[in-house]
C-alpha cells in the first residue's frame, strides 16, 4: 500500500466513508460531549464518528479518560446533565436520531432495543431482589406477559448463560463475580436487543473466569445475531470477540478497521505504541517500548493532533492543524498526517510495513 493511494480515498468532510452502508444499525456522527465543572470544561468526546452494522461487533479500545464510556452512555442518553452535555453531533439508531428522542421513547429503547453490560457486576445488580426477578423485571417492563410467562422466560435466560434455573430465587450475594456477570448478561439479552453496549464487561474478573465469560459472549453473539459495542482497554479481548476495532485517544477515533487490518499492520503511532507496551507471550523482550509521556489533560487538549506531544514522529504541522481520517486501504482508516503524505516519516512507514 503506497501513500498516494491513501490520499485519493480521503474521507469527504462531515461524514465517514463507511456511513452509507445499508445494513448500518448505529451511526454516530461528529459527537461532541463536554463536562462542565466550576473551573473547567472537560472535552471528553471531540468529533467522534462511529458505525456499527447489523450483527457486527465493534471493539472500542482506549486508555482511561479516552472517552469510551462517555460515548456509550451518550448513545443511551445516560450522560448526567449537569455536568455533562452533548454539545454537537448526531446518533442514528435504526433511522432514529437518539439525540431528539423524547424521554418516553428512550425508556422504550433502553433495555429492549439497546441494552448495557457494565464493568462491575456487583453494583449493577440490586442486592434485595432475587436474580430471577431482576431479569423478569426487564421483561415485564417491555413485554406484555403474565407473571408465569415472565418467570419462565427469565429462567430460560438464566439457562442460556449457563446458570441452572434452580438458582432463580437466589440473591446476588450468593453468586460469585463471574456468575453475577452472567446474570447481568442474561438481563441484557432478555428482550432480544438489536445492540448490546458492553463497558469493560470482564475487567473485574480473573483471567480464567474472563475466558469463560468471553466464550459465552461469543457464543451468544453467533446465536442471537446481536450487534455489540465492546468497550475495553484490553487489545486481547477485542481480538478474540470482535469483527472490527476502533482505537480511541483523547475523545476521537485515531484508527479503525477490521481486526486483521489493525492488528496485523497498525498504522497510527498511538496504536503502534499500544502494541509495543504489552509484553508478548511468544517472544522474550528485554525491554518494552512504552509510549512516552501521559495522556493530555482533557481540559486543555493540544491543538492539532492530540497525540502529537507524545508522538516520536510528530513535526510542527501535526501541532497546527486538526487531522481528518483517511483510508489506508480496505476499511482501514487512520488519523495521521504522515499517512496522508503531508510529511515524510520513513521510520514510521518501515514500522507499518513490518507489521506484527
Amino acid at each position, binding site marked *: 500500500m503506497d501513500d498516494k493511494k491513501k490520499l485519493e480515498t480521503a474521507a469527504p468532510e462531515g461524514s465517514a466513508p463507511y456511513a452509507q452502508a445499508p445494513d448500518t444499525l448505529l451511526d454516530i456522527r461528529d459527537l461532541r460531549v463536554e463536562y462542565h465543572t466550576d473551573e473547567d470544561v472537560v472535552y471528553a468526546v471531540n468529533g467522534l464518528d462511529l458505525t456499527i452494522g447489523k450483527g457486527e461487533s465493534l471493539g472500542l479500545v482506549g*486508555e*482511561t479518560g479516552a472517552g469510551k464510556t462517555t460515548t456509550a452512555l451518550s448513545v443511551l442518553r445516560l450522560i448526567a446533565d449537569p455536568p455533562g452535555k452533548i454539545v454537537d453531533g448526531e446518533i442514528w439508531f435504526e433511522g432514529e436520531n437518539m439525540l431528539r428522542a423524547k424521554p418516553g421513547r428512550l425508556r422504550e429503547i433502553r433495555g429492549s432495543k439497546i441494552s448495557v453490560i457494565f464493568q462491575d457486576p456487583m453494583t449493577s445488580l440490586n442486592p434485595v431482589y432475587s436474580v430471577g426477578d431482576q431479569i423478569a423485571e426487564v421483561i415485564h417492563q417491555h413485554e406484555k406477559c403474565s407473571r408465569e410467562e415472565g418467570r419462565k422466560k427469565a429462567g430460560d435466560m438464566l439457562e442460556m448463560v449457563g446458570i441452572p434455573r434452580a438458582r432463580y430465587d437466589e440473591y446476588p450475594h450468593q453468586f*460469585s463475580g*463471574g*456468575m453475577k456477570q452472567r446474570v447481568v448478561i442474561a438481563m441484557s439479552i432478555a428482550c432480544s436487543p438489536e445492540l448490546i453496549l458492553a463497558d469493560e464487561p470482564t475487567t473485574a474478573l*480473573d*483471567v*480464567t*473466569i*474472563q*475466558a*469463560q465469560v*468471553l*466464550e459465552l459472549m461469543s457464543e451468544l453473539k453467533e446465536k442471537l445475531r446481536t450487534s455489540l459495542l465492546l468497550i475495553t*482497554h*484490553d*487489545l*486481547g*479481548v*477485542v*481480538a*478474540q470477540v470482535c469483527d472490527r476495532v476502533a482505537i480511541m485517544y483523547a475523545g476521537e477515533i485515531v484508527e479503525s478497521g477490521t*481486526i*486483521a487490518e489493525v*492488528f*496485523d499492520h497498525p498504522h497510527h503511532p498511538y496504536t503502534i*505504541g*499500544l*502494541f*509495543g*507496551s*504489552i*509484553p*508478548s*507471550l511468544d517472544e*522474550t*523482550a528485554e*525491554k*518494552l*517500548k*512504552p*509510549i*512516552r509521556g*501521559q*495522556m493530555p489533560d482533557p481540559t486543555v487538549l493540544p491543538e492539532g493532533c492530540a497525540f502529537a506531544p507524545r508522538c516520536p514522529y510528530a513535526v510542527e504541522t501535526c501541532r497546527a492543524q486538526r487531522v481528518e481520517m483517511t483510508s489506508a486501504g480496505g476499511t482501514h482508516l487512520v488519523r495521521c498526517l504522515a499517512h496522508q503524505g503531508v510529511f515524510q516519516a520513513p521510520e514510521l512507514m518501515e514500522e507499518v510495513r513490518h507489521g*506484527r
Partner: protein
Amino acid sequence: MADKNDVILEVRNLKKYFKSPTGTLHAVDGVNFSIRKGETLGLVGESGCGKSTIGRLILGLHQATSGEILFNGRNICEMNKKQLHALRSDLQIIFQDPFSSLNPRMSIGEIIGEPLLIHNKVHGKAELNAEVARLMDVVGLSARLFNAYPHELDGGRRQRVGIARALSLKPQFIVCDEPVSSLDVSIQAQVLNLLKDLQAEFGLTYLFITHDLSVVKFFSDKIAVMYLGQLVETADSTELFQNTLHPYSQALLSAIPAPSSRQKMQRVKLIGELQSPIDPEPGCRFAKRCLYAKERCTGQDLALRDFGKGHFCACCQAGELAGNPNFN
C-alpha cells in the same frame, strides 16, 4: 539450589490460617520457595489464592501460623517488633493501589522522605531534601512535584512515588504486589521498564506478585504458580511457558486472550470457579475443576516433585499428560 550462599530469601512450609465464622480459611498452606540475590520470582495466581498474604507474611505484616521465612538466614517469623523495624530498611513493599497507599494529607516530598526520618538515615533538612530530590530523579518524577499532593498526580506518577518511597532506605529486597495492575497499558510499560532498570542499577531482588501472566513472563526469572494457598508449579520463566506440566498452569495460559488476529482463543481448559479456601479437603485442590482429575488426585496432599532443570510440579499426573491431545 545450586549455591546456598546466593539465597536471599527462603520460605519453608509457610502456613497462614485465618479464623472465619464458617471455619478456618487456609490462605497459605504449606508453601516452599527460595529466591536468589538479584533474581525476580513471579508469583502468579487468581484473586483469593493467597499471593498477597505471602507478600505480607514476608514483611512481617501478618504473623505466620507456622513455618519459617529466612531472610539472609534470619527467621522473620520469630523477630520481635524492634528487629522487624530494623528489617524494614532491607525489605520493602510496593502496593497495588497507588490511590490508597499514599497519605492524602502529605506532600510527595514528605511521603518519600518519611522512611528516611523514621530510620534516622539523614541529618538535617538540607540532607533530607537532597536525598528526596535524588530519589524523585531516579524514578523519573519531576522536581516541581516536591510540594504537590497525591490527588494532583495520575496513577502512573503515584506509583512512581510508591517506588521512590520503597527505594528510599536502599533495600535489598522488594515485594511488588501487583504494582502495575491498576495502570493503563502505556503507563504500565513505563513502570515495568523503570523497575527493571532499578533492579539492574541497585542489584535488587524482587518478589513480583501478579495475576497477569504476560507481565510475569516479561519480568521474572522464575515463576511460581499458586492455587488456593499452595504452589502447584515452579520453574524458570521460559521453561514454564514451553513445557507446562500442571493442568492449572495450562488453564491459566490458555485463558489469556491473545492480542492477535491469527491466534484464536482456545477452549477454556477448566471447569467452574475457584473453590472456597475454608477447610479444604485433602488432596489436589484443583481436582474439582481439572479436566484430567482421577481418583488418585483426592485423598492425600501432593507435594512439589522435581522434574529436572529446576522445574517442580505438584500434579500427580504431571509428565503423563503431555501425550493427551487436549493438553498443550
